[in-house]
């Protein structure tokens, strides 16, 4: 698989090797806003098809990192390698209000890919095929976010970037959305980077959990519990404590 380079070539850097099986490769990434250093020499490699959750306190730079990977922000230093075919689901659905649902799903696809059938298939996967002709403003928050998910997956991305996609949903809808994302990931196998502040969510969904502390990776944990996961196991609780502690939350 080939990775597209987003960064300026770093000084003295040769042609980086874009080995097979690599989903994302970040090295020495620095980013500052004014005086505030957000990312401070961050290195991160994500394997193709790997589900990685990115935890961090608010302001820890996790959303900045995701925006860099989405090519919505630039880095000051370091190199960023990502697959060319990647898509994003934001915290808000961000559907284009002037397009019906199915046209939203096809947004940005070229020529022969822009078929109604393809949109319907993608909507079917998120159980919204019967809303294909609806206007976005008629959808509930959870429905709109499912459309955003269909829009992200219809282009078969190698990297799926999820920026707190469940944060604005009610608790019940969130649980259903988490199951849906797990199911879609299993079926399509993109590398996923899920930015979240919900520790439980990260353990339920991810293969690997990375905690961002002071602009670097402070903790990098593999989740070994088999899927589907349940909160009832002691491993779950142990990992949860460990992650919360690293985030500065003391669990009794």
């Amino acid at each position, binding site marked *: 698989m080939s990775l597209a380079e987003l960064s300026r070539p770093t000084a003295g850097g040769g042609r980086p090797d874009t080995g097979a099986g690599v989903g994302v490769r970040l090295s020495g990434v620095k980013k500052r806003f004014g005086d505030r250093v957000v990312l401070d020499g961050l290195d991160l490699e994500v394997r193709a098809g790997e589900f990685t959750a990115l935890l961090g306190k608010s302001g820890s730079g996790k959303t900045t990192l995701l925006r860099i990977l989405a090519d919505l922000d630039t880095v000051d230093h370091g190199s960023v390698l990502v697959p060319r075919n990647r898509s994003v689901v934001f915290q808000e659905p961000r559907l*284009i209000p002037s397009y019906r649902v199915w046209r939203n799903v096809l947004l*940005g696809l070229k020529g022969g890919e822009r078929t109604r059938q393809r949109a319907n298939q993608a909507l079917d996967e998120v159980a919204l095929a019967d809303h294909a002709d609806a206007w976005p403003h008629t959808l509930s928050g959870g429905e709109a976010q499912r459309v955003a998910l269909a829009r992200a997956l219809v282009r078969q991305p190698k990297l799926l970037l999820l920026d707190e996609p469940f944060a604005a949903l009610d608790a019940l809808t969130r649980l259903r959305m988490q199951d849906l994302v797990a199911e879609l990931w299993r079926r399509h196998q993109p590398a996923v980077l899920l930015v979240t502040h919900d520790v439980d969510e990260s353990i339920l969904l991810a293969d690997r959990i990375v905690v961002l502390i002071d602009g670097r990776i402070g903790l990098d944990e593999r989740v070994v519990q088999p899927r589907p996961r349940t909160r009832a196991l002691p491993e779950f609780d142990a990992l949860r404590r460990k992650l919360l502690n690293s985030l500065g939350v003391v669990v009794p």
Partner: protein
Amino acid sequence: MTADTAGGIGIRTAVSAPVTRTSELIDLSQSSLRRDRGAILKRYSWLLRFLVPLFVLAVWQVGSQLGFISPRKLAPPALVVDAAIELLQSGDLQTALRVSLLRAATGLAWGISIGLSIGVIAGLSRLGDQIFDSSLQMIRTIPFIALIPLFIVWFGIDDAPKIILVAVACIFPVYLNTYAGVRNVDPKLLEVGRTFGLSRLAIIFQIILPNALPGVLVGVRYAMGTSLLALVAAEQINAASGLGYLIMNASNEIRTDIVIVGVMLYALLGLSVDMIIRGVEALLLPWRVTVVSK
């Protein structure tokens, strides 16, 4: 705690234990929100709209009959109706209306085209903004009616100065609202376009312009009203045809009945302009939440 001993319960449900004291509770099933007090009034509320006009009409008619209102100052309603019928039968009204509407429509079309183009350019590009915005903001403060004498000198006294005046007057509302509409498109949507690989041109045509359209239509609505205003002004100062000419002529002959017919016609035009733009909005913006408000 005291809450228990006081015998009070928070919420009364169907299965709750017998309550000893209910005096502290109020029954929300009798809430004033639920009571449909004005149901009958609501159903016939549209009739209320006619109350004031009908009252004015009655005062006018009775006042004229009793001789309180001089027929030279204000012709009685019946005479106004007669004048309207007379003008319709002679065809004068139709001719005047056709001439005036053609002027207004031509000027409006030019004004909308120019205002829309400049608004889009200035809204989209910083360069366009710098070139056009401050100049237009400056010219905007000039009352357009002040330009009439100058336009007569420049463009003569036939249709041209009137059409140009209407066009000039219509540029600004369209420009301002288009500019704001383009500028106010949610930057988050632009990011979506970017992440899903839309070209700059595709972002403009697929995201920015459709989402600026509600603003543009607000501008067009204003412009349609303004076009009538500008037309009245232009036609009353110098014209040999059209609605304004009809009114000025009648005024010189102290035919208040004809003047009132003309004025009412302007009101009708204003109303139909509003209805047209509502129709256009419903047609172009089916995705909007509150386009057609009842």
